[in-house]
């Protein structure tokens, strides 16, 4: 079920009413309702893959409790690796099997030896990368004795399958989500109201920003060899906004929906395009994944301890694995590598943790020019990276970049269906302006003191749905494929 569908608009109020009005907020019953609703939410896409979630839940629940009882370190390690192998095994099979087979065959062909290995027609279960990482975090935390395992199977199931963040995150840590699920929840007006506002803002990012730009981006990337460098640049910038609108829109709806059920999820995006260097960008982009890799990969590898070489190796490993997590394609690996290279200078000069405050280019003339320059420079570098992310193959990506960066020719872009481009420039300008205004708190997009301005913002946002809604578009979220 998609957040931006009518099905969800019917589903959500029903679950909300059942959740808060049934049996005087009985915790067990509420968790049971979460599980049923989540399975329905997921099964709406395909019932068959529910078995994977249920299996994963049972395995990690059992292993969590076994880890707690077991004192012998070797056995504890065996339990941990059993969980890791099962979870990553599913992920590897469904997501990467064909990729490895194809790469294997290509490698042999490259070496002059033709081999035949048949690939399988595998459907990628929606959200498998997200819930696999979530359950893994639980087992690892229990193994590290940072978390007590729960004996409540209902609560644990609700933690694994909590529908707002089941298919595209934020990837929650057991230490944040599980205690909330185990605790009796009370409805709060402010929390509910904030939730609804975040849902509205998320829908705007998805339906208006991402979905409007998607046909233009598709056209430019699919026909890049016929367009001028200025058009290709526009296509890359539009994709930067499309993917941000799509993914952060999803996260906002997920966080907003959770608030309606009295549960706070972690923030996933903090206005990442207002970043002054790559380090700042990665503190603001897909935070739940970056911090997951930091805690469960970067630190275990040694982090920044040890020699400089080891630290750089660890950074490259994290970025490459992060790229590969996004999809079974070399384009994602190159995207990860590109970001590792961008990150490296600030890591070496120790400026990666330099900008911890939010950007304010209007603070002074100096910051207008210096911070303005930094954030434009960072945005342009990130946009180049997005070309790898969006292209179908590495060759396509390099051709695109070659035309965009080295064959300068400006030409007015005309969309084959005759879209009026000025509308989209105005839309993006409005979006950037609005995000800049609200940049202090990503969880409060309508945080204006005056209730009249707040109301005006609601009206403008909803009016933009009417202006940009397109019935003929495929409205699924980009990150569902990861």
């Amino acid at each position, binding site marked *: 079920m998609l957040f931006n569908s009518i099905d969800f608009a019917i589903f959500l109020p029903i679950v909300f009413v059942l959740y808060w009005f049934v049996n005087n907020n009985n915790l067990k019953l509420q968790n049971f309702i979460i599980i049923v609703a989540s399975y329905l939410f997921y099964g*709406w896409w395909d019932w068959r893959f529910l078995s994977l979630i249920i299996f994963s839940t049972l395995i990690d629940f059992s292993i969590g409790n076994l880890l707690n009882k077991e004192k012998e370190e070797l056995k504890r390690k065996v339990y941990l690796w059993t969980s890791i192998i099962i979870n990553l095994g599913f992920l590897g099979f469904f997501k990467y099997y064909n990729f490895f087979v194809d790469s294997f065959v290509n490698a042999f062909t490259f070496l002059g030896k033709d081999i035949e290995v048949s690939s399988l027609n595998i459907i990628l279960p929606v959200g498998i990368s997200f819930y696999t990482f979530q359950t893994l975090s639980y087992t690892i935390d229990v193994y590290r004795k940072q978390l007590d395992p729960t004996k409540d199977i209902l609560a644990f199931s609700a933690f694994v399958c909590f529908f707002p963040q089941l298919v595209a995150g934020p990837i929650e840590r057991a230490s944040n989500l599980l205690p909330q699920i185990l605790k009796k929840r009370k409805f709060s007006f402010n929390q509910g109201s904030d939730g609804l506002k975040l849902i509205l803002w998320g829908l705007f990012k998805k339906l208006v920003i991402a979905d409007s730009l998607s046909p233009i981006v598709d056209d430019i990337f699919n026909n890049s060899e016929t367009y001028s460098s200025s058009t290709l640049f526009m296509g890359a910038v539009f994709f930067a906004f499309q993917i941000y609108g799509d993914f952060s829109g999803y996260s906002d709806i997920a966080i907003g929906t959770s608030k309606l059920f009295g549960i706070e999820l972690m923030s996933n995006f903090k206005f990442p395009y207002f970043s002054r260097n790559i380090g700042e960008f990665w503190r603001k982009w897909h935070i739940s994944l970056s911090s997951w890799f930091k805690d469960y990969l970067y630190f275990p590898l040694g982090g920044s301890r040890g020699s400089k070489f080891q630290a750089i190796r660890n950074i490259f490993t994290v970025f490459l694995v992060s790229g590969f997590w996004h999809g079974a394609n070399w384009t994602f690996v190159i995207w990860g590598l590109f970001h590792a290279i961008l990150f490296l200078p600030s890591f070496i000069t120790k400026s990666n943790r330099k900008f911890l405050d939010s950007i304010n280019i209007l603070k002074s003339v100096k910051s207008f020019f210096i911070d303005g320059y930094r954030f434009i420079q960072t945005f342009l570098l990130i946009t180049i990276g997005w070309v790898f992310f969006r292209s179908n193959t590495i060759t396509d990506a390099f051709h695109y970049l070659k035309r965009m960066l080295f064959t300068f020719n400006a030409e007015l872009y005309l969309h*084959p269906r005759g879209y009026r481009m000025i509308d989209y420039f105005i839309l993006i300008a409005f979006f950037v302006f609005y995000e800049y205004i609200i940049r202090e708190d990503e969880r409060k997009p309508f945080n204006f003191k005056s209730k009249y301005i707040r109301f005006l913002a609601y009206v403008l946002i909803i009016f933009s749905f009417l202006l940009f809604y397109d019935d003929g578009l495929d409205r699924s979220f980009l990150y569902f494929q990861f």
Partner: protein
Amino acid sequence: MFKLIKKVVFYSILILISLELLVRVFHLQNERPNRYADEFGVEKWIPNQIEYSITGKRKQNVGKYRINSIGFNTVYDTYNPFVDSVEIAIVGDSFIEGFHEDYTNSLGQQVDKVFPNLKVLEFGYAGYDLADELHLIKAYEHYFKNINHTFIYLRFTDDLERNHYVESSRLDLNSPIRTVAKQIKSLVYAKDIGLFSSVAKTPNRIKSFVKGNKILKIKKEKEFEKNLKRLENFKKLMRTYPIEKSKFTFLLDERLCSAPFLKYLAENNFNVLDYGEKMDASKKQTTLVYDQHWSKEGRKIVANLISDYICNKSLMIK
């Protein structure tokens, strides 16, 4: 919680009112004329309505229409075809009706302007199929017998779904509830951009889910059988409403037609004017941005084709 629900309801009402105002201020909504069925049972627009027709989002295509005394969108107040004058008629659905352009530059007018002594009479009405068109021609036989030549627009995939004429349910669109709904401009606009089509599809999706997530197998007849049925419908309609073949030409897109249908037309000496090939060859967009109807370019192509056809077949001679 009730406080939240109350606030949501209150804000929703205020927002809906504001949206209605904004839609009206920017005039985003389409103003459709009202319909009626005349004394012959021919469905048309109520005469003498002048307004703007808006297609797509953000007012991307605006056309002024003017319904004449007969009930069709055209520059001519009325139709008086005489034996001595030269008239061409174009009969068809929304493509011919031409609400997507100003009535002064309609398809008919574009042809009209090529020939100084020619009047092109337009009989376009959204939703007409061949049964409607032939019924109209029969009902207004006194016009059509004096008209030099008539082009009948025929979209093979849509216009041959029935083999006899019955009054359509489109007139229900004039029901009191719908008339009131038409006054809520934001509703009209939202419907036009397809905002409610997802709602309409919801029952099917729920059914599909309940039935074990199998994709609903809509009982689709095989394309071949469908095309055969269309051909049979065409034959039956031609038997019911016989036409003088030399005075009629079917304006159609051969890309959409089945081979047996085209073969039947050729073997039975029906005149055909295909616009599909020219549309294909065009480098410009021939349909509107958010709509399947012809764009300026599409209309120009069809008007040129009709003009050439009139010249080549010497249709200007009585």
